């Protein structure tokens, strides 16, 4: 009896009172439906249908039909991510000075909102042999035969540009607008030319934000799924790792193998993200604001 008020008081001093418990439902939810499934999947991946604990992983890394998916996915995801990020920077630098940004950002948010399935259907029409793009190419004599852009590597690549570039650009824009323009003005006043200002002032300040953008864009591109099936050649050049995981789970009903592939997918993503963040550690860290504090 005597202990109770003091315990409550002590807890309250550490920030724990009745109201703090309001966070518990959300925490319980994420633990139950995100953390638990992940740990369960990890456990399941080591209890294969047949063979020893590691046989799923052994099978993945000995069967080229399975392990090739990592290379295939990287071959799509890495160029797309680099292209999107590299193009985003100069465009964002230009757009930040624009007074009416809203129209452009609204147009660019449309493909993100519509999602990959709709973009896949649209591109199947638009890039197809009888689509408008090929019609323009033929009309202007830029091509003699319709260029094949769907059901192959380029279909998936372009769909990832259509949905990925706006995503990358809007993230980059939010980082670029966070840099105080007076820093650049100071550089200009001291005689630095545009290229120097970019290389010496802006880029170092943007590196932390760009690394996050690069990570998020890469992770998205690496987990490409619907457009690889609909716009690509899912049996060959665009058989990405998520297709392999899906087929294991829902076509062969081998949930153990599917979990193993999902874990490998997560591991590759984590590996690349950690590598990128490690590289970021070498770069400048400090305030991107100017003036006093």
């Amino acid at each position: 009896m005597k202990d109770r008020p003091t315990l409550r008081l002590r807890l309250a001093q550490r920030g724990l009172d009745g109201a703090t418990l309001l966070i518990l439902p959300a925490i319980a939810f994420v633990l139950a439906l995100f953390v638990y499934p992940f740990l369960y999947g990890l456990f399941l991946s080591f209890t294969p249908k047949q063979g020893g604990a590691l046989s799923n992983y052994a099978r993945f890394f000995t069967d080229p039909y399975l392990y090739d998916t990592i290379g295939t996915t990287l071959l799509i995801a890495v160029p797309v991510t680099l292209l999107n990020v590299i193009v985003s920077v100069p465009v964002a630098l230009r757009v930040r000075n624009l007074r009416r940004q809203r129209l452009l950002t609204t147009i660019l948010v449309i493909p993100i909102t519509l999602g990959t399935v709709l973009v896949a259907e649209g591109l199947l029409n638009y890039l197809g042999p009888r689509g408008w793009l090929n019609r323009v190419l033929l009309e202007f004599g830029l091509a003699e035969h319709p260029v094949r852009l769907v059901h192959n590597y380029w279909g998936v690549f372009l769909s990832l540009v259509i949905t990925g570039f706006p995503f990358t650009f809007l993230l980059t824009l939010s980082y670029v607008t966070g840099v105080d323009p007076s820093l650049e003005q100071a550089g200009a006043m001291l005689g630095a030319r545009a290229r120097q200002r970019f290389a010496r002032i802006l880029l170092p300040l943007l590196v932390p934000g760009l690394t996050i953008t690069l990570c998020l864009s890469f992770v998205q591109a690496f987990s490409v799924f619907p457009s690889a099936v609909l716009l690509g050649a899912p049996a060959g050049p665009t058989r990405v790792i998520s297709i392999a995981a899906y087929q294991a789970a829902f076509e062969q009903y081998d949930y153990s193998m599917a979990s193993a592939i999902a874990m490998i997918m997560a591991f590759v993503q984590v590996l690349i993200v950690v590598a990128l963040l490690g590289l970021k550690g070498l770069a400048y860290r400090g305030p991107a604001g100017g003036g006093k504090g």
Partner: protein
Amino acid sequence: MGAVRRTRTEGGAIGARLWAIAIWALVGFFVLNLLAMIATVLVNSFSTRWFTTWLPAGYTGQWYAQAWDEFQLPDILIVTLEVVGAVVLISGLLGVPAAYVMARRDFPGKRAVMLLFLLPLLVPPITYGIPLATVLYQAGLAGNIWGVILANLVPTVPFVVLIMIPFIEQIDPRIEAAARVFGAGLGQMFVRVLVPLLMPGILAALLLVLVRTIAMFELTFLTAGPTSQTLVVALYYAVFAAGVRAGQSIDAMAVVYMVTTLVWLLIALRFVNPTQIVGRAKGS
């Protein structure tokens, strides 16, 4: 010396102008292709036949009637409405109180909890969707509408938390203290004081959840059964089995999906900035 300097700056000015033109041309090219892609779907959904010409041979609205029956659009729309409504409601009920605690209380392990809320937003849905679907199937929850709702809540609950934290931090804590002094319990303070003050933030967060849930393909795809498909999953199956049905009919369905999504996007954009739709990792 002066002459040299002048030519350099002039060269720089021309270079800068060319660079600016190149960038705007690039942006224009991207936007043009994007709009043309959307227009293709729209035009095709109204066309009678469209093969080797710039525009279709004629126009008709019959594909919409056909899509309505063929794809059982009324059922799909009802399922979509139920899923989205439940996800919006539950993620608000779980997320807003949690965001309140994250904004106002300093408790041990807070950084770990923050990481816990960030992870489902950083890991792509297909990666955690497969183990999640496995667990839900074994619990007998997948293959029906409850599985779809539970799976869709995984990214939306943390999303609401992260969006709401800054909104709550903006409110003066003395208002809450005053309410408590005047005898309001925790529940009363929430309903009478905090929720009305937070309405713009809650509206923004829930509208973003709504738009994201309509378009959430992967998680719904992995957990939906035949009677619990949402619009985007039904569209995927229609495109996947293209050739079975007329392309115009699929595009009519795609237009229904586009309109459903874009109407809510336009409403959402009245309350949020477009950059907020992607600025999901800003909580870190």
